[in-house]
């Protein structure tokens, strides 16, 4: 299985020179099996860059199919949706899967995003591709061609998000973005179970350890939380993810250095770039 980070930034897209090495696009992560099957997690602005690549292949001819998992519907995880060009090509088949975010359904939430006030698309029904919106209850297991996925709800400030454990080609990736544990140094058992033995743990690291105290309760983790999860769950590698919009490349370098000194597990900061072997 290969992975490519198309967007690693949390909350807000950050253009500019200080954000070039790690990238300024909001969250979107692509997973590809050895056989070429593809799964996308989240539709932040990073998805618009993936879209350009996809349009050069089957999706440009209306012959593409793609499952997309949404961790939740905060804007930084869906703001690429109206600009994900494979949606505009008739014949493409795209599944969007997520939990219902509130009493409002996932479909109604995405319809709200595309409501005529906000978007000239004026509703999901105007996407030319075949698009299905499918919901699951967190805890569900889902199978896609080439992938099996386990889901669990984790706390995220005033709401919760879905974390994913994705297995393909005998390798496992755990995606724990947008999470804040009630006790940051004692992560929830559900999170540990999800990350158990993962080859790669992708964890919310929105805050440097020292600025976390100012941001407690907003639903994000300090970098050290991922270390605790990785060590207790026996994950083999840790990717710090969902970088703060205020974190310049140099600041992220510092966070990686400080975090690496806390653990023997290899730590890196997720960066927009090329395909990595899991």
């Amino acid at each position, binding site marked *: 299985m290969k992975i490519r980070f198309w967007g690693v*930034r949390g*909350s*807000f*897209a*950050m*253009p*500019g*020179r200080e*954000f*070039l090495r790690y*990238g*300024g*696009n909001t969250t979107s992560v692509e997973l590809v099996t050895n056989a070429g099957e593809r799964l996308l997690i989240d539709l932040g*602005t990073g998805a*618009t*860059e993936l879209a350009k690549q996809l349009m050069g292949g089957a999706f440009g001819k209306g012959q593409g199919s793609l499952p997309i998992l949404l961790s939740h*519907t*905060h*804007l930084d995880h869906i*703001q*690429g949706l*109206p*600009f994900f060009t494979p949606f505009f090509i008739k014949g493409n088949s795209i599944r969007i899967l997520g939990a219902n*975010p*509130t009493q*409002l359904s996932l479909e109604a*939430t995405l319809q*709200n*995003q595309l*409501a*005529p*006030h*906000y*978007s*000239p*698309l*004026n*509703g999901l029904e*105007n996407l*030319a591709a075949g698009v299905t919106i499918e919901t699951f209850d967190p805890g569900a297991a889902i199978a896609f061609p080439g992938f099996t996925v386990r889901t669990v709800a984790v706390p995220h*400030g*005033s*709401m919760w998000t879905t974390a994913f454990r994705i297995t393909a080609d005998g390798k496992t990736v755990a995606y724990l973005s947008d999470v804040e544990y009630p006790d940051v140094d004692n992560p929830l058992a559900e999170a540990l179970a999800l990350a158990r033995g993962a080859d790669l743990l992708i964890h919310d690291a929105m805050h440097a350890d020292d600025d976390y105290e100012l941001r407690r309760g*907003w*639903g994000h983790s300090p970098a050290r939380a991922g270390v605790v999860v990785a060590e207790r769950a026996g994950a083999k590698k840790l990717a710090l993810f969902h970088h703060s*919009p205020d974190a310049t490349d140099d600041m992220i370098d510092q966070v990686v250095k400080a975090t690496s000194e806390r653990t023997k597990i290899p730590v890196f900061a997720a960066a*927009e770039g090329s395909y990595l072997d899991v």
Partner: protein
Amino acid sequence: MQITFWGVRGSYPVPGAATVRYGGQTSCVEARSTRGDCVIVDAGTGMRALGNKLVREARGPQNYDVLLSHVHWDHIQGLPFFSPAYVPGTRIAVHALLTAADELQQVIGGITRHEFFPMPLEAVPAQFDFHQVEPGVAFDLGAFHITPIALNHPFGSVGYRLDADGTSWAYVSDTAPFDKVLHKQHFLSGPEPLTDADRAALAAMREELVARLAGVDTVVYDTHFVPEEYERFPHYGHSTPDQALEICVEAKVRRLVLYHHAPSHSDEQMDQIAAKYRAAGLDAGVEVVTSCEGMTLAIGRNGQGPTVEVERTNPGIGPP
């Protein structure tokens, strides 16, 4: 009076190496009168950095006025990230085109629904007030005399002429030209045949725009597309620099500012666009400037010749 560009991009923010000079944040312009009164036009992603600057400069809570052209995401999604909104005692007045102020509150408040954002607008410390604007009905905010102007964009949009300090500028974004497509309140998968009434409505809108822009010093205009892109997507609701220049020549505007750059336009493409239309403007008697993030323009002619008071708030950004 001066204006500063905090976001110049259309549709969605575009990080990356290809946009470092012109900037990747979406629509937001700060206008300042000589005595320091401030009006913010559009609340795209550029508004986050503006808010951070305003909080650094302010001593205590302030009042802010925000004019919205319309409420497509690229023009409003900076609002929940505008840091003055989190300073208790701040008042933020939002002026926009909708059928009623309470509808406006619902629609703007809707972007901070629980599903989209962790804190609803009602819960932020600042007091938000909503004011409906109507094309042609002018109003005053501090030193500014403001006239909304109807534009041609899906679900409606307004431009604004702002007069202050004996000079004027106008914000004309987002808008399509006034010939092929009349935007209404439904989805267009392509241009629809125009009725006679549609053609008359387009002609009237264009005539009104030219009249309102008459003699304005500086016009910031939606020039999202280059002509070949426009030909492919005439129903997307955006203009080209050629169409903007035509309007500005007719209205005898001194300076045209290209704005709302397509997300696909790299810095190199923007350099080409800037050079091409600077030259076209010279031939047509209009100074053409291409906006970039961090650019400040003085409004009003100081002495003879073209204006060169372009100050770069962020020296890392801007055309060469």
